[in-house]
């Protein structure tokens, strides 16, 4: 089996979970990966300071799409404070594949979008 393009990565890429629009929504953000022009947006519905539901939309490579799909399942139910504290290691660990320096932004784009929507901080996750 391929080290990077594992079965579950390809599965999430080909059939991404929680993709589409979510209306109405309370929070949203849209970000670009400057390396490749890939675009990823998120709609988030909040209830009692928690992510009740969310949807990603946009286009990107297998790494960025799978990362968004896998993260979406974890993010549901998370408190906004918890989301604000998520860092790059959380996402890389969750992805479970060796991410090279050049693909790091692919893996982290979704977290940048979600944190931007929740906290207003649009910096790349460290």
């Amino acid at each position, binding site marked *: 089996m391929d080290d990077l393009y594992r079965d579950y990565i*390809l599965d999430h890429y080909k059939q991404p979970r929680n993709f589409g629009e979510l209306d109405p929504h309370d929070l949203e953000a849209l970000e670009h990966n400057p*390396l*490749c022009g890939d675009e990823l947006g998120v709609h988030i519905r909040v209830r009692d300071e928690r992510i009740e539901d969310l949807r990603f939309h946009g286009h*990107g490579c*297998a790494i960025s*799409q799978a990362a968004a799909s896998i993260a979406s399942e974890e993010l549901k139910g998370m408190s906004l404070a918890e989301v604000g504290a998520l860092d790059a290691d959380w996402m890389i660990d969750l992805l479970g594949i060796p991410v090279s320096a050049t*693909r790091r932004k692919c893996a982290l784009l979704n977290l940048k979008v979600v944190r931007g929507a929740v906290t207003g901080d649009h910096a790349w996750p460290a």
Partner: protein
Amino acid sequence: MPPAAESLLDVGADFPILARRLNGRPLIYLDSGATSQKPEVVIEALAGHLRAHNANVHRGVYPLAQEADAAFEGARARIAAFTGARPETTIFTKNVTEAINLVAYAWGRAHVGAGDAVLITQMEHHANIVPWQVLCRERGATLRYLEVDERGELSLEGLDAELARGDVRLVAFAHVSNVLGTINPVAEMTARVRAAGAVSLVDGAQAVPQLAVDVERLGADFYAWTGHKALGPTGIGVLHGRREILERMEPFLTGGDMIASVDFQGATWNELPWKFEAGTPMVAEAVGLGAAVEYLESLGMDRVRAHDRQLTAHLLESLARVPGLRVVGPPEAERRGGLASFTIEGLHPHDVAELVAREGVCIRAGHHCAQPLMRCLGVGATARASVSVYNQASDIDALVGSLLAAREVFALDAA
């Protein structure tokens, strides 16, 4: 059908880097559109200059300084002759981006005003978009785009229609598109621009390494190109300008070397081309680029073009065998430079580039600094393979093999 080997150049041995391996496999470099590899003669010229002839230029009295002067200005003369230009109208810049900024600042701010228009095309690199956006915003001018048709080409009628509006001051366009590969009809376009009383700027970044470029014959008022895509070092670009225009222009960057004299309150400008070269220039890089053009001349630019055209034909034929692959730009090799950008259904360009790299194959993936064009093409990104003098048909065969393997990793045939 691969091209007959004897009709291609066979100069890979001149490029030391091609002997190295990547991911345990021979390096197959198909990203010359981003930057070319360097022949030993260029590396040696650069290092040899620093080893034996280094001194600052234009100011030393001692013999070593005279050697540096002779090397630097000798390189300028050789580089100018290579592109059919005069040394005094051949200005060294850092790269094409800086050359275009030079024109946008030093010419544009004096000649483009409110109500005027700058015309560029939908196929431009960001380097030939953003300086004009900034200029137009600052001056209250309009930036308009000449459309790219479904073949990836510009229309001369479209250019005529834009020029007929009477407000266009400058038309800037690529000689060869870095995404589509399209070779634009430069001479026909510059003649129309001149007849309309406007000024032309041609971005020759992709053209100079592969076509015989004669800036006089092309009729461009400004023609910019860069060393590192033409087998030379990074850090050196070239701007050729029409003498009458350059003479009337104010300088771009100011400081040392570009002055005739300085007093407490003012200064007068040096002659061409030094008026536009503030500060210590890129001496060793100029010497390296001089060696690069000498090397290209030794191969013969007609043979370089024939080599690239044959490899591009083979590239287009070979890519057509990959299921789900779509090439953008003109379908005929003779209408394009040595590159092909493509998408594969179900496989993102980033993943394509990652997977083929495992086989030692280097290609580019992304928006190629041409995001407006990507929007016109309706794609976020493409993969791009580009060839140079050192490539062989077998490099393209290796690319195609690795593309088929990439489809297998993504199980595209199973779906």
